[in-house]
């Protein structure tokens, strides 16, 4: 009964979204306040109904209701509770329900936090947002009903893919979706501004917190996914340039560009049409990402479904929304006149350079991702585009970006000079070269990657610190009174530096050892002594495990005792490798147990991964920077002044 009510609630929410896409838009056009105001209860109603629907499906998973097809195919009574819950979105239908839940959540947030928006503009934003949610309600109801019942409920379920039964991956999709879908707000604001025919500093100030929030969630989501790949897939890779990873990385790059160009609109009223275009593209790439993951057109490790009908539907949604918005854009772009005037060397120019680099690097990722498809369609060439291409084609952009970033960050608005901008950065420059020399001297080989990565990282972090110091007028007490936006900016930029260091150190200086280890016979890897003590068979809640006990020693002292495992999930008929990692600040010791050999030994792989955790630490620091910026007074003022519009009602 609850399941049918959940389904019914979803249909009602669909109806509300249809009402909300039309009525407020007409109201805004005609200036009818009553019609505009319809958007608020409908947006709240959509959230409540979709929330109920999601709760009903979650309940079916929690209570293992095997009369629901989705529960049968993705759950099992023996599965731990947390994975019963994460199983809700560990499949196509359920993840789509989560997607619409977040869409309606953002719509409702626009009502709650948007008290300050002019009513006509707000009505348009909510109408556009409702069109997006209507499209996805239609998608889920017509092609991917999560509430389908089984005629004959089986005794037990078929279990969730064991690779997905993991804490890192349990929360990877919700964060990613908060990011993807958060960009729909930027899209709605952009389209509403195009309908209105007006983009100004206020618009940029409204759209920026939504974009920032979406970017923070995307950063966390991508980091969780990469962290999961690192410890779960068994050889410690953290990024594979897989189509689905690229699908999340492209919106991240574009939203980073959008964050920066919106600053120029807000402060200087320039780059308006470009910023609108970025807002459309950011959500466009989210939709393309959804298409890539769900259509199975580009084969990838985590494609959900291989269903052409669903792919066609998402492609149609993408085409209609992006195409429609771009058409509107070409009609209205000429009305958006830039106001700010600035010199060739200025903060504005630096932010333009940032946008060029981020947008073009995103283009490179995009073309690399779809190239196999293009080559097969037009030239009948079946080929692969893998990490070697992306490493070669993408990395240079990030190197240039990292070099320019600290200089651009201290550059004054309107007109500056490079020599003046470099003055506060002299210390950072010296430190960067010191880092280069140190890394060069310490490393054993002569690869350029490690030292250059170190230098760039030091440059970014020290540059961010120098910038804060400059803004504080070289005085300590003032440092703590700087606006949170300044802190947010410096922290986020330093986070990028930390990630750059982690990636280059890990890639350049990793040590690897593959061997047959005999029980009780120690062996040495890069200064560590590893001893295989025993291998046991252990039974988990829903799996069987071959678990090794291994001791890691350094200079005769015990560093850690680790338990790498090989698991078999009998229900899903699938083996997984569970690496054991001793996490450290300067290195991870990463152990993997393989098969038993004929001579009684075990295949063992040992990796010493220097500074691996810095990759994700940097992501956390970047998100923290974004969060700090979000709590800045400017945005709180905009929200806090919500009671004012009643008195200052626009004369519409």
């Amino acid at each position: 009964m609850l399941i049918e009510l959940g389904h019914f609630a979803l249909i009602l929410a669909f109806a509300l979204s249809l009402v909300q896409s039309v009525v407020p838009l007409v109201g805004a056009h005609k200036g009818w306040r009553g019609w505009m105001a319809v958007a608020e209860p409908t947006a709240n109603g959509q959230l409540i109904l979709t929330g109920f629907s999601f709760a009903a499906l979650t309940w079916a998973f929690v209570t293992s209701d095997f009369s629901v097809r989705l529960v049968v195919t993705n759950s099992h009574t023996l599965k731990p509770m947390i994975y019963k819950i994460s199983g809700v979105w560990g499949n196509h239908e359920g993840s789509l329900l989560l997607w619409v839940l977040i869409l309606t959540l953002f719509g409702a947030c626009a009502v709650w936090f948007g008290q300050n928006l002019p009513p006509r503009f707000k009505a348009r934003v909510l109408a556009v947002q409702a069109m997006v949610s209507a499209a996805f309600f239609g998608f889920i109801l017509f092609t991917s009903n999560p509430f389908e019942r089984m005629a004959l409920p089986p005794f037990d379920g078929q279990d969730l893919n064991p690779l997905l039964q993991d804490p890192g991956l349990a929360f990877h999709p919700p964060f990613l979706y908060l990011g993807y879908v958060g960009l729909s707000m930027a899209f709605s604001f952009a389209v509403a501004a195009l309908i209105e025919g007006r983009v100004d500093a206020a618009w940029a100030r409204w759209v920026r917190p939504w974009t920032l929030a979406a970017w923070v969630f995307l950063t966390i989501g991508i980091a969780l996914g990469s962290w999961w790949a690192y410890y779960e897939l068994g050889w410690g890779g953290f990024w594979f340039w897989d189509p689905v990873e690229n699908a999340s990385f492209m919106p991240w790059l574009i939203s980073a560009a959008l964050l920066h160009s919106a600053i120029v609109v807000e402060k200087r009223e320039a780059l308006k049409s470009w910023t609108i275009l970025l807002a459309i593209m950011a959500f466009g790439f989210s939709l393309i990402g959804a298409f890539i993951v769900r259509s199975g057109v580009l084969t990838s490790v985590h494609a959900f479904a291989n269903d052409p009908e669903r792919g066609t539907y998402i492609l149609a949604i993408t085409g209609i929304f992006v195409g429609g918005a771009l058409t509107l854009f070409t009609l209205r772009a000429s009305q958006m006149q830039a106001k700010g005037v600035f010199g060739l060397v200025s903060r504005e120019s630096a932010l333009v350079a940032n946008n060029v680099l981020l947008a073009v690097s995103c283009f490179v990722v995009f073309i690399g991702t779809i190239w196999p498809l293009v080559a097969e369609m037009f030239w009948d060439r079946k080929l692969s585009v893998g990490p070697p291409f992306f490493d070669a084609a993408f990395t240079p952009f990030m190197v240039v970006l990292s070099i320019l970033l600290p200089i651009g960050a201290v550059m004054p608005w309107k007109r500056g000079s490079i020599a003046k901008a470099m003055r506060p950065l002299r210390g950072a420059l010296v430190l960067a070269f010191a880092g280069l020399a140190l890394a060069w001297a310490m490393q054993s080989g002569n690869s350029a990657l490690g030292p250059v990565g170190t230098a760039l990282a030091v440059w970014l972090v020290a540059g961010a610190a120098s910038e804060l110091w400059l803004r504080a007028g070289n005085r300590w007490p003032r440092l703590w009174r700087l606006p949170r936006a300044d802190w947010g900016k410096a922290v986020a930029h330093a986070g990028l530096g930390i990630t750059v260091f982690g990636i280059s150190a890990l890639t350049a200086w990793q040590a690897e050892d593959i061997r047959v280890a005999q029980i009780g016979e120690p062996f040495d890897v890069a200064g560590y002594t590893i001893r295989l003590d025993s291998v046991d068979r252990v039974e988990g809640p829903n799996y069987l495990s071959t678990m090794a006990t291994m001791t890691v020693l350094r200079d005769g002292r015990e560093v850690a005792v680790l338990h790498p495992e090989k698991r078999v999930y009998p229900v899903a008929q699938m083996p997984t490798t569970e690496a054991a990692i001793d996490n450290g600040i300067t290195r991870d010791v990463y152990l993997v147990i393989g098969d038993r050999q004929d001579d009684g030994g075990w295949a063992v792989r040992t990796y010493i991964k220097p500074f691996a955790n810095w990759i994700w630490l940097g992501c956390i620091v970047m998100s923290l920077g974004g969060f700090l910026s979000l709590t800045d007074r400017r945005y709180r003022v905009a929200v806090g002044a919500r009671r004012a519009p009643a008195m200052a009602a626009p004369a519409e």
Partner: protein
Amino acid sequence: MTMRALILSLALAAVALPAAAVQPDEVLADPALEERARELSKGLRCLVCRNESIDESNAELARDLRILVRERLVAGDSDEEVIRYLVDRYGEFVLLKPTLTGSNLVLWIAGPAMLLLAGGIAAIYLRSRRRAEEPDVDSLSDEERRRLDEILAD
């Protein structure tokens, strides 16, 4: 042996475990050759996998390819000869790094070309901004000015 342990060992035996990436028995005695084999493996696609190199993959086919690469190296092939041998047998699908030939030139040139184009447009835009007339800065309407004062007064 208890009943439970018996079931456990039977279950473990029943499910065929895949070979993990690079096995100890594949490793060549000559470290220089092994190093070359690893580098080559990283650029070769495991044909039955989804976007994994044979160096990373657990699949049987990847193991066969890894052994094949090592056999060719031991037989004295150069890196290029090994790659040509594999491309002749499996097509260019096996290469993770697309070759710089024919239509693939578009892929490789797309990034730099786009950078030039975007850089050019940006340069023209920046020049126009430098020359532009400073418009009337005080372009807020009275209504907006009042609203701004209210917000700032909070």
